[in-house]
C-alpha cells in the first residue's frame, strides 16, 4: 500500500516537472536578482529587509498560485484523460489515490520553496556582503509558508473533487484571501450585537483556515524569529486542518460517479 502511494507521489511530481511548473523559479530568480541589485539604490539602508520581504512574499504568492492552479487540476486531468479508470482498476483506493496526488504536489512545492529559500539566501549574501544572521533566521518563516501552502493545496483538492477547475480555482483563491482576514472575523464576532450573527462569525472563524498563524514574513524581515512554540503550534494546526480537508475530499471523491 505504501509502495502504491509512493508511485502516485512520484508520478505527480514528474508530471509537474514535465508541465514546467518549476519554470516559475526562473521568474523568482530574476525578481530577486533585480531587487538585490536595484533596491540598494532606493531603500536607504534597508536592503536586507526589502530582499526578505520581497523574497518571502513572492514565495508565498508563487506557491499559492502553484498550489491552487496545479491543485485544482490534479484530479480533473486524470478524469479528462481517462487515466483515472486505469489507476482505479488496480488495487488502489480512491482515498489513497487522492492522498498520493496531494503528497506529489507537496513534494513539488517543497522543491520549489527550498530552491526559492536558497535564492533569498544568495540575494541576502549579495546585498549584505557578509554572512548575515538573517540567512538562517528566514528558515522558520519559510517553514510556516510551506505549511500554509499545504493547506491551500488541500483546499484546492477538496473543491476539485466535486467542481470544475475554474470554479475550484476561484473558490480556493477566495478561501486564501478570507483566511488572511480571520482576525477580522474574530473581531467581528466579538463586536456584533446580534447573537446569531455573533455565532455565525465565530463558526466561520473556526471553520475557515486561519492563515495569520503562518504569517511571519514581516517579523522575520526585522530579524525576529517566531518562537518554537508558535512554529510547532502552527505546524500541528496545519496538519490537523489538512487531515480534515483530505477527509472531506476523500468522502466526496469516494461517492463520485465517473460514468
Amino acid at each position: 500500500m505504501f509502495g502504491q502511494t509512493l508511485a502516485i507521489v512520484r508520478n505527480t511530481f514528474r508530471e509537474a516537472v514535465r508541465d514546467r511548473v518549476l519554470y516559475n523559479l526562473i521568474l523568482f530568480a530574476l525578481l530577486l536578482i533585480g531587487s538585490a541589485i536595484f533596491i540598494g539604490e532606493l531603500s536607504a539602508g534597508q536592503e536586507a529587509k526589502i530582499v526578505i520581504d520581497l523574497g518571502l512574499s513572492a514565495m508565498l504568492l508563487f506557491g499559492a498560485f502553484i498550489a491552487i492552479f496545479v491543485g485544482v487540476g490534479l484530479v480533473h486531468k486524470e478524469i479528462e484523460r481517462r487515466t483515472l479508470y486505469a489507476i482505479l482498476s488496480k488495487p488502489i483506493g480512491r482515498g489513497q489515490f487522492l492522498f498520493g496526488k496531494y503528497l506529489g504536489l507537496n513534494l513539488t512545492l517543497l522543491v520549489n520553496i527550498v530552491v526559492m529559500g536558497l535564492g533569498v539566501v544568495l540575494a541576502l549574501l549579495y546585498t549584505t556582503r557578509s554572512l548575515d544572521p538573517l540567512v538562517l533566521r528566514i528558515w522558520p518563516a519559510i517553514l510556516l509558508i510551506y505549511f500554509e501552502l499545504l493547506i491551500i493545496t488541500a483546499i484546492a483538492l477538496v473543491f476539485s473533487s466535486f467542481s470544475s477547475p475554474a470554479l475550484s480555482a476561484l473558490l480556493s483563491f477566495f478561501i486564501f484571501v478570507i483566511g488572511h482576514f480571520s482576525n477580522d472575523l474574530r473581531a467581528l464576532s466579538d463586536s456584533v450585537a446580534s447573537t446569531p450573527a455573533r455565532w455565525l462569525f465565530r463558526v466561520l472563524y473556526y471553520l475557515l483556515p486561519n492563515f495569520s498563524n503562518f504569517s511571519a514574513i514581516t517579523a522575520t524581515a526585522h530579524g525576529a524569529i517566531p518562537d518554537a512554540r508558535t512554529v510547532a503550534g502552527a505546524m500541528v494546526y496545519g496538519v490537523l486542518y489538512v487531515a480534515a480537508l483530505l477527509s472531506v475530499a476523500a468522502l466526496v471523491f469516494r461517492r463520485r460517479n465517473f460514468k
Partner: protein
Amino acid sequence: MKTDIALALVLIVCLGGAIGLSRGLDQHRINSSDSFAEEPLYLNGRSAKRMTLAFNGLAADWYWMRSLQYVGRKIVTYEDEHNGKFDLADLSALDLRLLPSLLDLTTTLDPQFIPAYEYAAVILPEINPNQAIALLEKGIAANQSSWRLYQHLGYIYWQRQDYRRAGEVYEAGARMSGAPTWMPAMAARMKSEGGSRAAARDMYRHLRESSSDASIQQMVDHQLSRLNALDELDTIRQTLASFKQRNERCVISWREVNSELRGFQLDAIGAPLDPSNAPYRLINNGCGADFDPNSKVAR
C-alpha cells in the same frame, strides 16, 4: 519562402511604425504623474493593512521607498529651480505635504519599521512637529522596548525648545532594557542646560552613533559642523576683541592675528577657513567676523 519574406517585411514595417509612433506620442504626452504627485492618499493605514493580506511588509517597503523618492524628487526640483542651492537644514522650503501621510501609512503597515520612525523624527519636525510627535508616540506604543524611539522623540521636543518634556522622554527611554548609559545623563542635561551648545553637540553625536541611515548621518554631520563653526566664530571674535583692546584699533587684515589663530586652517590671504572650507570674513571694519555668504555651513 515568399510568404516568409512577406511576413518578415510586415514585421519590420509594423514594428518600425510602432516605434516611430511611440516616439511621437512621447514628445506630445503631458506628464500626468506630476499632476497626481501631490494627490492625498485615499487609503488609510488600517484598510491598507487589511487589503495587503500577508504582504503588509512588502507594501510598507513600497511606501517607504515612495517616501524617500518623494523627498528626493522635491530636492532635485528645488535645486533645478534655485541653481543647485538647497540647504538641508531648511526642509520647509520643499513643501513636503504628503510625507506625513506616506510615513504614517508605512508604519501602520509595518509598525516595527524603526528606520521609518527615525526618518520621520529628523524630517517631519520641519513640516509638522505635531505629526512628528504623534508618529513617534505611535512607534513607541508599537515598540515599547526600543530606546532609540525615545531618543528621537526627545530630539523633537529639544528642537521645539521644550527641554522639560525632552528630559522626561530621555528619562523614560533610559529605563528601557539595553538603553545606553548616556541616556540618563542626557535626561539630566536637558533639564539643566537644554538650550546650550554642548547639549546640542551631545544630542547630535548620540543621534549619529545610533543611526545607520545615511541621510540622517548627513543631516547630523551638517549640524555638528555648524556647531563647530559657531565655536570657531566665538574664538575668532574673542581674538579680534583682544587685538582691539591691545592696539586700540581693529585689524586691517587677517595677517595681523594669524599667530593667534594657529589652530585654524588659513587660506592664501591668511583668512581662517570654516568647516566647509569657505573663509570667514571680517565685518564692521575689522572689529568683527562672520560667515562668508558662499559658506555651506548651515545657519
